[in-house]
């Protein structure tokens, strides 16, 4: 009994829970659809690696490293992919956990576990499980793992020789994905400047930055990307060339917020709730309280609109933003969501300013959210904005998870002491929602 209690109370217990849930989940996953079934699993044996990479480079994509892994993983026994995928999920937990020095490690790991499990796992199946995870999840996880090197530099922890090799391989793979490349480049540059200002050596960060830049040049010059763009325009967005720069920004921005305001987006709800909670802890200023409630108000107005058929003003205020083009620009109420979305972002930023004040923390959190948002807005410049579905939101989700953990980290003392009950309610509700989400997915696994 005591042993069981000791295991339960161990700070690594959340890892075990995560493994268990993911194992059950992956056990039920069947690879019956997607790009790996239609194409990638048939490459090995039919073409040499050189032939495949050459045709991809000239005709389709710059993700040569990722797709090399993809063709082999989809060719081998499916349990190899399942094992690797579970390991990558656990690596998210490890990397996030490493980045924060909570006093209560168990609380930290549970928090990360809940937040990571709240990510809609089905988003990682939209182009086929193996194709989507190797193209989106794995680069993200390896990128996140790379950031632990920054932490080691910051804390003056010596990086072991084999870790250099692991970091090198991680950057190589992660930077091969366009979105992760932008994230890596931004975060590495941010910290290189930080270390320069603090007169600290960061040679390995410079090497990783150089690798990322080299891959970015490779992505930008790859002829396959432009060939693919032409094909994708014909397939998904024939009037893509008619869109102006502002149209593309608008589409990328509104499509992102539309999805984040849908009622099933628990990560965003939790981020806004904890943000509001921290503002209430930090200050008694009524104006700041009011601003911090705005995001929650907008979310709940949107949730309300999904449950009501009434055509009232509240429903009109909570409509999702539609594309504005030559056929409907004169309909004025179409601009209301855009107005609300800008207010939403503004109130989040102001609330963050209240809780962090003018500190490095404020700068870092704003930067992380900004980069996360940019990785999705940039999708407006691709004809596959809608075709790529919600999987391209992964990086923004992780930015919100990072910022949520950061808030709890900074307010850990206050969460633990003065507001224990409120905090437990605050984490208990998300945990319940998270469980319902997971159970729901398992029940519907046949649709997967």
């Amino acid at each position: 009994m005591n042993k069981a209690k000791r295991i339960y109370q161990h700070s690594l217990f959340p890892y075990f829970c995560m493994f268990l849930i993911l194992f059950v989940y992956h056990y039920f996953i069947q690879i019956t659809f997607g790009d790996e079934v239609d194409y990638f699993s048939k490459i090995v044996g039919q073409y040499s690696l050189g032939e495949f990479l050459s045709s991809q480079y000239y005709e389709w994509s710059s993700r040569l490293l990722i797709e090399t892994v993809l063709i082999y993983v989809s060719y081998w026994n499916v349990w190899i992919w399942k094992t690797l995928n579970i390991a990558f999920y656990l690596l998210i937990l490890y990397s996030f956990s490493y980045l924060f020095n909570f006093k209560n490690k168990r609380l930290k790991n549970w928090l990360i576990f809940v937040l990571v499990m709240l990510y809609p796992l089905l988003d990682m199946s939209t182009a086929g499980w193996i194709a989507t995870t190797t193209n989106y999840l794995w680069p993200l996880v390896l990128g996140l793992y790379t950031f632990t090197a920054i932490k080691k530099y910051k804390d003056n922890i010596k990086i072991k020789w084999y870790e250099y090799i692991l970091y090198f391989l991680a950057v190589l793979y992660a930077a091969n994905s366009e979105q992760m490349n932008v994230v890596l480049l931004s975060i590495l540059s941010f910290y290189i400047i930080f270390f320069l200002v603090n007169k600290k050596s960061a040679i390995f960060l410079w090497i990783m930055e150089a690798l990322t830049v080299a891959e970015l040049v490779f992505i930008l010059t790859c002829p396959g990307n432009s060939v693919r763009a032409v094909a994708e325009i014909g397939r998904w967005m024939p009037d893509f060339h008619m869109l102006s720069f502002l149209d593309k920004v608008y589409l990328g921005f509104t499509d992102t917020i539309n999805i984040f305001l849908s009622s099933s987006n628990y990560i965003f709800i939790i981020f806004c709730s904890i943000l509001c909670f921290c503002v209430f802890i930090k200050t008694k200023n009524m104006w700041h309280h009011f601003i911090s409630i705005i995001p929650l108000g907008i979310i709940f107005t949107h949730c309300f609109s999904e449950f009501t058929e009434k055509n009232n003003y509240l429903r009109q205020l909570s409509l999702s933003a539609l594309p504005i083009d030559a056929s409907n620009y004169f309909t004025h109420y179409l601009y209301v969501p855009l107005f609300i979305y800008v207010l939403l972002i503004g109130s989040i930023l102001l609330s963050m300013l209240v809780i962090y004040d003018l500190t490095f923390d404020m700068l870092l959190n704003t930067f992380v959210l900004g980069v996360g948002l940019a990785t999705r807005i940039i999708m407006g410049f691709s004809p596959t904005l809608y075709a790529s579905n919600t999987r391209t939101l992964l990086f923004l989700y992780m930015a919100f998870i990072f910022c949520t953990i950061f808030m709890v980290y900074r307010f850990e003392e206050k969460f633990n002491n003065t507001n224990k009950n409120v905090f437990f309610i605050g984490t208990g509700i998300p945990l319940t929602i998270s469980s319902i989400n997971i159970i729901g997915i398992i029940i519907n696994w046949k649709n997967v």
Partner: protein
Amino acid sequence: MNQIFNIRFKIVYICIFAVFAISAVAFPAIIYLDAQRVTTIVESNYNYIDEPLLVCKIENYIQTKGGITLQGWFAEAGKEIKSRKCYVVLKSLDDGTCLQLPTKVVSNSNAKAYFKDGFNYNDAGFSSTVQTNYLQTNNTYLVLILYENDGQMVLFKTDQTITAGQLTKQYGVIL
């Protein structure tokens, strides 16, 4: 927490508040102005294309508050729509000015029914709206199509006209 800026919190707070308050109004306004971008073009800068396989049908003129929406389809027989850069141009028959209006690709099955050759013309449909204040009352406008053909923007002449401010048998009051 380490204070890294020597600026007063209140000033930064007010600045961010002001930027977002202004953006909340300015961003929709800019999108509106961008979406209705009507530009005047010089007709002589473009060549006319004389291709018998090209067909353009304006099927509807819908009056909305302060604007006229033109709906129709435009396609070349035997050529499926892969990507489209196409504008409606209204050429005033009175003074020769040409107004270029952006279009939106819409799904339209009429081209398929018209050609009956098995090709997919679903994306041949278009919709474009011009605000009435751009049109001169009693001026007659010839509808032209400006589109990208082999990397060059060319004009295609339709046989359809609209007269601003007059009752027409076919479409009712235009202005």
